[in-house]
Structures are given as structure tokens and as C-alpha cells.
């Protein structure tokens, strides 16, 4: 891939799949600082891995792979790397305005509760749940996680039950 092409592809991916990076970072961290740090690590890995992308998998699947691998492979340390942290990166939810805000705020609370539940799950189960919530097929989930589709099915049914329990709390 030509260097300029890489930059253009990366920019497009950020527009299209930035949400995946954000979701994965939010699911695997407890503080804003850690979240920004992980977002940065994932973006760096995406940039470094970009030349290896052959287009065999869907872009979203590939982005998920890199994001989840980075989140699970890295060990978050208490000391920050503020000197190398990207200052122009801001992640957050669009503020609710206008009518219907009460419902939106309630929905947002539920999503926040959902993130809290995801963080309580084993990391591999959390990965599966993120893929499930993003409506991926069993085949895609198996592709990202490197397990069989039947295993995905068995695990998913357990994780869904577990999630339902956690959401009741």
C-alpha cells in the first residue's frame, strides 16, 4: 500500500469505525485517563498493522481484531504517559438536547449500566459480548476470536444469561 493511500485509508477508517475503538476502550478501562491511553494504543496498532490488511476480512472485523487484541494484550499501568498522549483526542457522548431528553437520558443510563456489566465479565466474554451487541454474525465473531462457531454459540448463550443477571443488579 502506498504511503499516501495508507493515510487516506486510515482517515476513512477513523470516520467509519472510530466508534469500535471507543467502545472497546470503554469496555476495558475504568477511568477516563486509561480510556484515552487505550484509544491511543489501539489507534497506533491500527496504523502499524494497516500495511498487513489484505482486504480478506471486513474492515469492521479487522478493526475489532486489532482493538480487542490490543486491549487484552496490553497491561494498563498506574503511571500515565502524558508526555506521549494525544492531546487532540476527545471521546464522549453527544449531549442530549430538546424534547425526548428524559428518554434519551434514561437510555444513556442503561448503556452506562451495560458498560459496567461488561467490565465485570471475564475479558474474553466481554469481547464476545461487544461483538454480539454490534450485531456480528457467528462466523464473524469466530473469525475475530479465533474459536469455532459452535463454541461462539455455547459461550454466547451463557454470556447473555450472565449479562441479564448483571443488568438486574
Amino acid at each position: 500500500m502506498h504511503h499516501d493511500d495508507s493515510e487516506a485509508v486510515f482517515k476513512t477508517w477513523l470516520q467509519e469505525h472510530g466508534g469500535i475503538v471507543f467502545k472497546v476502550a470503554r469496555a476495558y478501562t475504568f477511568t477516563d485517563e486509561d480510556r484515552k491511553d487505550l484509544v491511543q494504543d489501539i489507534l497506533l496498532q491500527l496504523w502499524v498493522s494497516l500495511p498487513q490488511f489484505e482486504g480478506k476480512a471486513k474492515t469492521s472485523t479487522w478493526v475489532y481484531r486489532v482493538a480487542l487484541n490490543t486491549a487484552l494484550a496490553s497491561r494498563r499501568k498506574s503511571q500515565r504517559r502524558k508526555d506521549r498522549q494525544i492531546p487532540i483526542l476527545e471521546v464522549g457522548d453527544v449531549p442530549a438536547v430538546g424534547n425526548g431528553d428524559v428518554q434519551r437520558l434514561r437510555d444513556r443510563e442503561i448503556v452506562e449500566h451495560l458498560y459496567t456489566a461488561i467490565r465485570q465479565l471475564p475479558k474474553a466474554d466481554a469481547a464476545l459480548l461487544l461483538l454480539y451487541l454490534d450485531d456480528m454474525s457467528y462466523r464473524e465473531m469466530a473469525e475475530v476470536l479465533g474459536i469455532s462457531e459452535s463454541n461462539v454459540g455455547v459461550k454466547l448463550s451463557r454470556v447473555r444469561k450472565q449479562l441479564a443477571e448483571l443488568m438486574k443488579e
Partner: protein
Amino acid sequence: MNPDELKKLWKTQTSAVRLTIDTDVLLQLLKRNKNHFEAMVFWRDAREIGVALLMAPILLWMGVKDHLPWTFFLMIPAMLGIAGFMLTDRMLQKRRQPQLDNPLRDCLERLLAQVEHQIGLLRNVFWWYLLPVAAALAAFFGHVTWLTWADGWRHRLASAVIIAVTTLIFWGVYWLNQWAVRRELEPRREELRALISNLENDNPVVLPSGEMSSSTD
């Protein structure tokens, strides 16, 4: 709320996520961070291997300058051997680096193999690092002690003190390596094993840390 409703809500909510990024500035910074990371890895390797390599000419120069006994020069092949071993190991390990765009399980298995390799290296630090240097040093000290035996008990005492201090330093290096294994690498290995087991099996168990995991054990 059932899982399907949650899924629907998740999609609508997460589509409202805002990522404020100046992509041009971001790219500049990513390139800088990539260079920084590569430089960091290069200098780490250069420092560890370079010190062993640099010691060879320094020892040669010291030995020739001070007309030291021939046993002193045994340190040179010991240092070169260590540098060669580290260099070969680094090159082999570079080829086995986990690829972060591989499926999660492959990536975790490679990471686990890497951690296990590190544990093996540090556990056996005596054989590949300490023993060659210690054997060369022992030969040199033994030789010097034998040559100066007739010079009286002060020389023998000095030799004994030097040998004791050197042994202590070697023991310290060995202990530090084993401590690093226990403190850093073994917990990491257990964490990776739990993650892989969680992916492979489907009977949830509770880890001592309180985190839930899955295992058939």
C-alpha cells in the same frame, strides 16, 4: 430489558458517540509515537547486547595494558558468547512476535509463548549469563591466587574478599532475575492462561483475584 432490546439500544447510543480528532495531527503523532516505540526497542536491545559486545575490546585492552595472566582473557569469549546468545534469541523472538491483526486466540497464544520464553530465559540466567562469566572469573582469580600464594596472607585475604564480593554480586543478579519472574512474568502468564482458557472452555470458575473466568478444570 431483554438482550435484543439492549442490542438495539446499544446501537442507537453508540452511534451518538463523538470522536473529536484532527486526523492530520493524529497521523503526525502516531508516526512520531511509532518512531519513538521503534527507537525504544532498538536502544533496549543495543544497550543489553552492546554492553556485552563492548566489554570484549575493553577487557582485551585492559589485559594487554596491565600484562594480566592469560586466564583474564577467558572473559572475552564469555562476553562474546553472551552477546551472541542474546542477539540470536532477539532475532528468533522477533519472528515470533504476536500479530495484533490475527484472531484473538492466536494473538494470546503467541503472547503466552513469549512470556513463557522470557520466564525460561530468566529462570536459566545462571546457565547462559552468570556461569560463563563466573567460570572465567573463577579461573582468573584462582590463577592470580596461585601466582601470589607465596606473597603472604594479605594477598590471600584480598583474593578471598574479592571472590566473596563477586559471588555476592552474582547471587544478587540471580535473585533479581528470579524476583522479576515471580513479580511480573508469572502473574502475566496466569492472566494469559486464564484468558485463553476462557476462550476455549465454557465452565465459569472464579479466579483468586475475584474475576470470573471459564475453565473445564
